[in-house]
């Protein structure tokens, strides 16, 4: 009887046969919180594949313009490609218009670029954070095929299930009686981001090693690195 007829059993398979998958899950988690005159966007620095840690020092937030940053994670090959194409589009825009693209425009461009690959998607979770035309902090959240939503805060990536409910509760004051949402200060946002990542790293193997926190205001950008557990 041929192997094909018997089928199934793993140990009977031809050991040479691997099968090609164009996507990989490389973990990574991102969080963004908008304030009245600032926005904070952070990601962990771990890059994984299965149970392996590929890198402990891979930030996932990309500075696009002085007022806009994007955090992306998921299939790292797609992340790299998306970043490259997006950066090229921004450069083309700045050459054509002698001006930097506004956060609102970058947000729409990203959605369009993701939808362009609707039938062979970039397997990437994105958050875009920036300062809009009125000087306010804004956060945009995307799905892999370009659905876009403007929000005040958002989490995405591997540990979204751990972090989003925490933010909903602490910033949105959801699911509580007689609670009013707090005013978002830089201190509160930073503390929440730190706590969120610490708890996510406790429970999710795809999140850890470190956090890179970026704060954007009208005056510029500051970056901070915080350590996380490395196991």
């Amino acid at each position, binding site marked *: 009887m041929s192997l094909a007829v018997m089928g199934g059993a793993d140990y009977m398979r031809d050991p*040479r046969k691997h099968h*090609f998958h164009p996507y990989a899950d490389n973990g990574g988690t991102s969080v963004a919180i908008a304030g009245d005159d600032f926005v904070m966007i952070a990601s962990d620095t771990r890059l994984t594949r299965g149970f392996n840690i590929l890198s402990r020092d891979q930030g996932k937030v990309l500075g696009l313009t002085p007022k806009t940053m994007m955090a992306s994670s998921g299939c790292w090959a797609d992340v790299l490609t998306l970043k490259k194409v997006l950066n090229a589009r921004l450069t083309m825009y700045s050459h054509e218009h002698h001006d930097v693209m506004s956060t609102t425009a970058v947000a729409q461009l990203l959605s369009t670029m993701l939808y362009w690959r609707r039938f*062979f998607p970039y397997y990437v979770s994105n958050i875009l954070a920036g300062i809009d035309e009125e000087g306010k902090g804004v956060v945009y959240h995307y799905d892999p095929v370009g659905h876009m939503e403007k929000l005040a805060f958002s989490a995405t990536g591997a540990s979204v299930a751990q972090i989003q409910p925490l933010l909903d509760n602490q910033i949105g004051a959801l699911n509580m009686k007689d609670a009013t949402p707090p005013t978002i200060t830089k201190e509160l946002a930073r503390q929440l981001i730190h706590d969120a990542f610490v708890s996510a790293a406790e429970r999710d193997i795809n999140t850890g090693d470190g956090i890179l926190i970026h704060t954007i205001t009208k005056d510029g950008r500051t970056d901070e690195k915080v350590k996380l557990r490395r196991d």
Partner: protein
Amino acid sequence: MDVGRMFGEVAPPLWSGGPAPGGFYSFPGTNNKQHETKTHTMYPSTSGTSVVGLVYDGGVMLGADTLGSYGSLARFRNVERTFKVTDKAVLTCSGDIADYQFIREVIEQKVRDDEISGFTPVLNAGALHCWLTRVLYNRRSRFDPLWLECVVAGFKDDKPFLGYVDKIGTAFEAQEVASGFGMHMAIPMIREAREKKGNLTRDDARKLLVDCLKVLYYRDCRAHFKYQVADVTAEGVKIENDLNLKPDTSWSIANFVRGYE
């Protein structure tokens, strides 16, 4: 006028059951292959196993054995899969040997083109790594992957560079990089050594690299005792061929294994 007759009806066949018009003669210039499907390589054939690389104080070192496995058969025992690209870059690949030899020829031609143009700076490791990312991602997007895990070592902006790219375009830079089984066994060894000692000297790095290859030879069925080491420093690239792990290994413990007689 009867619109249905104009657009709706298809002309009846010339004669039923007979050959298609032109079916007996293949006219020159006509495309008769339009319904042939193209098949791509979806699994590796002759393949190489782990590559291990690490950055040390002032340079980068890479090691890989020279076995070309055909499934579980140790088919070719002396295939070199490390090559010097320029004075600032070395490439070693695991995965399909044919795909490696193909990409090597493309890169070699690219380096020659750069050289004769005269205005292009020497291809450094960072540039090569970036270029490979695009080539491999492009091939995976066409569902015709180059079945490779590439490790690029060398210099970029006068600093040691070590990078990884795989068949779908996953790419990163790190202080220690390994492919295949090495990712499970060599990486923890190197990370542990770095945690204990901080900066590694060239001698530390060499000893560690050989240790990693030895562990891989003991535990990875597709590994081999013949290996190559590439060492890149500011002075340039040095590749040592025909190295041998066998004198440093001991298989006497095999006599104590019971139950497989």
